[in-house]
């Protein structure tokens, strides 16, 4: 990059920040770094500026590199991290206008980092970058001492269940003894009330009920976990009967905290990318209008913007659907298409031309970026109108019986069904809810997991291999209660093979929900 470009880029950075602020976006200092394509591709693949070694990062790096090399330079790549001082990469070989576009885009992300309640939560893990750097160092040592394969096996197993965190992102670290005390206190209170014969508020308790409470109290005293735990790695790190060595606990802890730091991003990917894209267009327009960027550069910008935001036939393009979502919400709130009166109107023509000149659009989208998760946004705005306007569909893969080709076919165009499936996909962001029910199953330290069934059965091959990985960390039999072909089933991996029990009588063995 020439020094003149360098100066101009600093001007773009300064002016675009001012424009962002004029639009009402929050900003903070951002560390913009000019990097080589290799650093950019690694930054995207490794989750953080530096991280430990793992083949999945290598795989993603390779994939991105292949795309980069095949499409030639000038890809609109950007990486930005939600650190205390956010850090963003600019690709040195990108055309000037494209780097300007990336800077404008980053201001959208930065506002989102600062204002979205989910991403604010992510900022709690701000140290994660330096932790990743030192973890890389320690893991290298483990590899030397315990062997590369051994360390890899553990990272693999940890990553298998890294997204199984507590469903509430604001939930603090679970505390087993605290929970036990609380539960015991509750039961004791019930018992005391039952035994207080003089209380006038007492409803008559039967002997059986009292015995029941006493039984529960007894069980609570030693049950682990006393109440279901959703954070699988957290539970395994503390309770694995193996027991885990210090380095193994370290590996699991690092993988867990990285996943926890990234979880808020997963829950808001659509809103976050949509927000950044919505604003980069508006900031860029101003930069061109003010002459910070010249007319020649406008073509470059327009090209790349079109490339990023084009609808994809095989993928959910965040950069297309995200800004469309905000624009749709903005339009509806500008025209007052919300509230009881609008919802209860059942004249489609009237609804289509509804315009109460409310002008609350901007306010609404700022509120969405502050308080919504992707699931909430989809729930509220993926209605028939939106799905039709954006030509959204679901597709499936089938095999052509003629020649064995794998064929992608449009499967669903019914807006109501699309909405239902998408909503589901976004509820847990592709991660089914699994809880630890019992860490001492059969009194033999076996692990009993329960899949909280929500209408979608688990992929059997992935399920079985995941159970094997959990066994790697637990060392004893691992059970998973789930639903297979509409029936309750218990899958067990005993260290050698997975057995599936769907037999009716075997249901007795299932723990009562």
């Amino acid at each position: 990059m020439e020094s003149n470009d360098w100066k101009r880029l600093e001007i773009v950075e300064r002016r675009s920040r001012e424009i962002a602020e004029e639009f009402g976006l929050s900003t903070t200092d951002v560390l913009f770094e000019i990097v080589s394509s290799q650093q950019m591709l690694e930054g995207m693949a490794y989750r953080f500026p530096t991280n430990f070694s793992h083949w999945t990062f290598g795989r993603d790096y390779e994939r991105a590199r292949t795309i980069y090399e095949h499409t030639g330079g000038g890809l609109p790549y950007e990486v930005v991290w939600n650190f205390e001082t956010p850090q963003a990469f600019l690709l040195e070989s990108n055309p000037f206008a494209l780097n300007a576009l990336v800077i404008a885009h980053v201001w959208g992300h930065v506002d989102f980092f600062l204002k979205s309640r989910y991403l604010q939560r992510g900022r709690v893990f701000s140290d994660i970058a330096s932790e990743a750097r030192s973890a890389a160092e320690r893991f290298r040592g483990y590899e030397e001492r315990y062997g590369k394969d051994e360390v890899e096996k553990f990272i693999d197993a940890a990553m298998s269940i890294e997204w199984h965190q507590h469903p509430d992102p604001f939930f603090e670290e679970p505390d087993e003894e605290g929970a036990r005390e609380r539960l015991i206190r509750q039961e004791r209170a019930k018992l005391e009330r039952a035994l207080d014969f003089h209380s006038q508020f007492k409803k008559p308790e039967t002997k059986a009920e009292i015995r029941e409470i006493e039984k529960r109290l007894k069980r609570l005293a030693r049950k682990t976990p006393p109440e279901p735990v959703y954070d699988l790695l957290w539970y395994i790190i503390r309770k694995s009967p193996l027991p885990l060595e210090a380095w193994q606990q370290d590996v699991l802890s690092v993988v867990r905290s990285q996943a926890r730091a990234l979880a808020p991003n997963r829950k808001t990917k659509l809103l976050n990318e949509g927000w950044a894209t919505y604003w980069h267009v508006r900031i860029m327009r101003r930069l061109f209008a003010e002459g910070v960027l010249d007319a020649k550069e406008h073509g470059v910008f327009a090209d790349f913007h079109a490339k990023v935001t084009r609808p994809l036939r095989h993928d959910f393009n965040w950069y297309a659907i995200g800004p469309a979502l905000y624009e749709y919400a903005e339009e509806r709130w500008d025209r007052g298409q919300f509230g009881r009166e609008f919802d209860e109107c059942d004249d489609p023509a009237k609804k289509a031309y509804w315009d109460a000149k409310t002008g609350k659009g901007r306010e609404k989208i700022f509120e969405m970026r502050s308080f919504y998760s992707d699931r909430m946004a989809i729930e509220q705005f993926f209605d028939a109108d939106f799905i039709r306007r954006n030509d959204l569909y679901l597709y499936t893969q089938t095999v052509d019986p003629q020649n064995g080709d794998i064929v992608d076919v449009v499967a669903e165009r019914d807006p109501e069904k699309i909405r239902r499936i998408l909503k589901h996909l976004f509820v847990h962001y592709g991660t089914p809810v699994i809880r630890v029910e019992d860490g001492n199953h059969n009194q033999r330290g076996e692990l009993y997991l329960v899949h909280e069934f929500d209408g979608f059965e688990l992929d059997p091959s992935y399920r079985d291999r995941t159970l094997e990985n959990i066994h790697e960390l637990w060392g004893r039999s691992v059970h998973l209660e789930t639903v297979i072909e509409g029936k309750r089933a218990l899958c067990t991996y005993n260290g050698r093979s997975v057995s599936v029990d769907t037999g009716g009588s075997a249901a007795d063995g299932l723990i009562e929900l």
Partner: protein
Amino acid sequence: MPIIRSDPVAPKGKKDAARHREKQKDAIRKQLPEIIARESIITSKKGKTVRIPIRIMDIPHFRPARDSAGAGAGQGKGKAGTVIGRRPGTGKPGEAGDRPGEEYLETEVEIEELIEMMIEDLGLPRLEEREGEGMVAETRFKIRGIQKAGPWVLLDKRRSAREGLRRFWGFLRYLEQETGQSELECFDALKQKDGILSDALELLQSGTYAPVHTAFEPFPIFYPDDLRFLEQKKDIEYHSQAVVLAMMDTSGSMTDEKKYLARSALFWLVAFLRKIYERVVIRFIIHDAVAEIVEEEEFFKKVLGGGTRAYTAYELAGGLIESEYPVSEWNVYAWHFSDGDDFEPARAAQEAKKLIERGISMFAYGEIEPSGGHHDSSLLAAFKELLDVQVHWKDGFMVVSGRESPFLAVAIQKKEHVHLALREFLDKERWGHGI
């Protein structure tokens, strides 16, 4: 805030990408028996690389089954049922459906790489090490030195001229010394007498000498001894070469399916030999009741009627060895594929024995019987009776091998057996005896 240029960091992606590739290879290795019998491989025209589907290397995790959640969402026009994408499947129709939920990625692999993997998989030494093991193959001529006689075409003019000049100067000095005349006069006399020393000396001493040439100009004088010729030597280059005499029963009972199995086995066997020998020639012989030499195309396609007499093919192979591929210069591999219902099995066994006795590297018989059933065919029974063989079974796969001779017979009943047959063929022990 200023924009900074970041310090380059040690590249990590490459190393981890290599590890990923290694894991992919492991996955391919596990699928080898299935992969090598793939139709797309042996029919690939280019022959250098093949595309094979391998499972995407992924960290297993709990996730909804694909059929319940669909493959994904997209944007665009098109009714339900509109095809939005298509790519070559995992082989035969219906096969992909056998593995629900697994995602496959088409990966390009070099056939060379697959062969290496099979060799590793079978625990064989790397075959290249054997390369060049001595068979006389080619002779040609090579210039190796200089000699004083030879055909005029090989006259080395430069060297000869040098020798001629050397003689000129020698004569000149001699004349100067003998006559005491000047260099120019001696030169002139020598020139007048066409370089003959005794005549020039006579002229100078005769007293009748009169100068003719006024400029001193050295010239070469050639005596027979001065000519230099390039020396040409017969150069024997040691090449390793092999001929494959591929024989196929094309009687009516050999269905396309049977021929396909034969073709698959042949493809890989030739590929292996190509790794061992610098040069591999394949000759194709088909037979029913009589044998004929054909081109590759016909070998796999032609259907003859009539009966089955394998001995006719073996005789023809013997003739080829006699006339074109002497075992002193060629490693000869005779491979025969048949379903084994032979009309004159005893005679076939006799001819096979003769072939082995010629000193060929291997006589292999692949019995193709996709219908299964473990009764010995007439041909196999005859081999067992005549030749000194041992029979062993491995997981339902029968191998008959000569105790002392390079004889091998296998029964290929299904695709997966191709891999086992190759394993037998490449067996370390047998290599020891075979070559």
